[in-house]
């Protein structure tokens, strides 16, 4: 029973040669997701200007998500796995700590956005669009981070 799905594979798409274009495609998709998230919150901010509808404190989730995006993508995979000698104030352990804190902030913002959606919009029965926009902003930024971090391969950097 333990390996019964081992021989199941996705159908092969041989017409698409990912090869050299993988990093470009991953960057583009990541960019689309990231900026779509921000335009969603801009839209909500423009349509719901009253603090009673969309409390200005809720914007901090998106800000911290963005900070986490830059923290996570500031360290390359090579920095964490191999020994980088010399330059930079972060060694291998420092880089891992940086990445860890970055992911903490990212997950924290996502959880906060979900919490806000439920606590401030769904449970009291208010119109739910502003809460959904905060949630989707953070969700999109989260997926954008994952795509930018893991969708690119450093083998192509030569």
């Amino acid at each position, binding site marked *: 029973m333990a390996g019964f799905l081992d021989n199941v594979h996705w159908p092969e798409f041989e017409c698409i040669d990912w090869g050299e274009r993988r990093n470009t495609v991953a960057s*583009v998709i990541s*960019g689309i997701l990231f*900026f779509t998230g921000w335009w969603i919150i801009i*839209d909500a901010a*423009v349509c719901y200007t009253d603090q009673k509808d969309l409390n200005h404190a809720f914007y901090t989730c998106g800000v911290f998500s963005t900070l986490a995006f830059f923290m996570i993508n500031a360290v390359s995979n090579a920095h964490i796995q191999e020994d980088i000698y010399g330059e930079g104030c972060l060694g291998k352990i420092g880089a891992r700590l940086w990445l860890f804190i970055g992911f903490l902030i990212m997950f924290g913002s996502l959880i906060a956005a979900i919490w806000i959606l439920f606590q401030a919009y769904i449970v009291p029965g208010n119109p739910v669009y502003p809460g959904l926009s905060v949630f989707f902003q953070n969700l999109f930024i989260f997926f954008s981070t994952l795509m930018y971090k893991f969708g690119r391969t450093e083998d192509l950097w030569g």
Partner: protein
Amino acid sequence: MAGIKALVGLSFSGALGLTFLLLGCALEQFGVYWPLFVLIFYVLSPLPHFIASRCSDNTDSSSNACRELAHFLTTGIVVSAFGLPIILARKEVVKWGACGLVMAGNGVIFLTILGFFLIFGGGDDFSWEQWFPRSIDGTCGW
């Protein structure tokens, strides 16, 4: 020189895109000129690519982190150029018809810019040195 025909074709499509944008502003039933702000995004969109190709001249590797960041930022600028008219239309600052025309103009202009880069390769024989001189040690001074 990669061809006069390509150049003329790209000029035509560029003019067509700008026509769509201006129609979205200037037609009688629309009449407001707020959509012209997407011109900022048109101007900004090639910049990340220029900065990345300027700062990483080693073309041995097929891509590097700088170039990928440039792709990320360029995509963001393109998304923003589509997002702005939608928000203007949702807020009833411009009408949805104008928004549609502006987005059609966006599409044509960005395809033109893309075509420019694909066909003319960002300017192979363009001499960067006269515009952005390098420092003595060969860096960009970042």
